[in-house]
């Protein structure tokens, strides 16, 4: 059993499908972050899910999906400033990474186009 079941949590959806659980988070949280399956939260819970795995932030609460093989998917909420900060930090890293990528694309686009003679030289 994961440590989550011993934490103080709120249940927003029970025994539903993963897709419905993801949609609930997307519709009910102002901030939504997407993580890969296996993303670790709290001490020992690795999120089970079909990508994209949504996690939501609502006030001081983080909402996430919790899958139990015999019972389906649950949407749980736990107050955790620490997890919220980690989600925001990861998102910032992703944005920085994609910005670096687009800067590289721009630089490549700025490079002088190859002339036809160079293209047919080989």
């Amino acid at each position, binding site marked *: 059993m994961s440590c989550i079941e011993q934490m103080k949590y709120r249940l927003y959806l029970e025994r539903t499908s993963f897709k419905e659980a993801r949609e609930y988070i997307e519709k009910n949280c102002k901030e939504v972050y997407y993580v*890969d399956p296996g993303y670790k939260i709290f001490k*020992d819970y690795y999120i089970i899910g079909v990508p994209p795995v949504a996690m939501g932030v609502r006030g001081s609460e983080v909402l996430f999906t919790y899958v139990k093989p015999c019972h*389906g998917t649950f949407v749980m909420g736990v107050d955790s400033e620490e997890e919220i900060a980690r989600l925001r930090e990861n998102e910032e890293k992703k944005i920085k990474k994609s910005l670096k990528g687009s800067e590289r694309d721009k630089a490549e686009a700025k490079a002088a186009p190859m002339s036809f003679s160079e293209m047919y030289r080989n």
Partner: protein
Amino acid sequence: MSEGKSALLVMGCPEVPVQMSMVIYLTHKLKKAGWDVTVAGTNAAVKLLKVADPESYYVQKMVDLDRLIADVVEKKIDFDVCFAFMHSDAGMTYGATFSAISKARLFAVVFGKNAEALGESIDYPAEKIVAVATHNPAPLKVKIDKVAL
């Protein structure tokens, strides 16, 4: 040819009878072919397996599913092939997780009354073995026997 290769069998919720039968059958078959086999499952599934195979004649390596997922994510262990058994949305979700975290060649073994619809809903990289089977393992066994490793 399979010497030294590792296989993982992931059990879903054990409420559909064919799962346990096929897990024992497939473990035996893979072991005979030289595979190193590990079976992962929930507490309930592992208990059923331990009672059915008290001296670990068929299954030597049994592990807790959540513990195993942690180890795969942390890159402490991985496998060459993975058979994820599923008959529900939750099982399908576990399969998606293995598809994302493991480098193993993944087989989604889909069974139960709604096997066809569930099989169609799988849109992650996996080779599908789908059979409408609940009590009678024969349709699933026929399809598993056709898998070439």
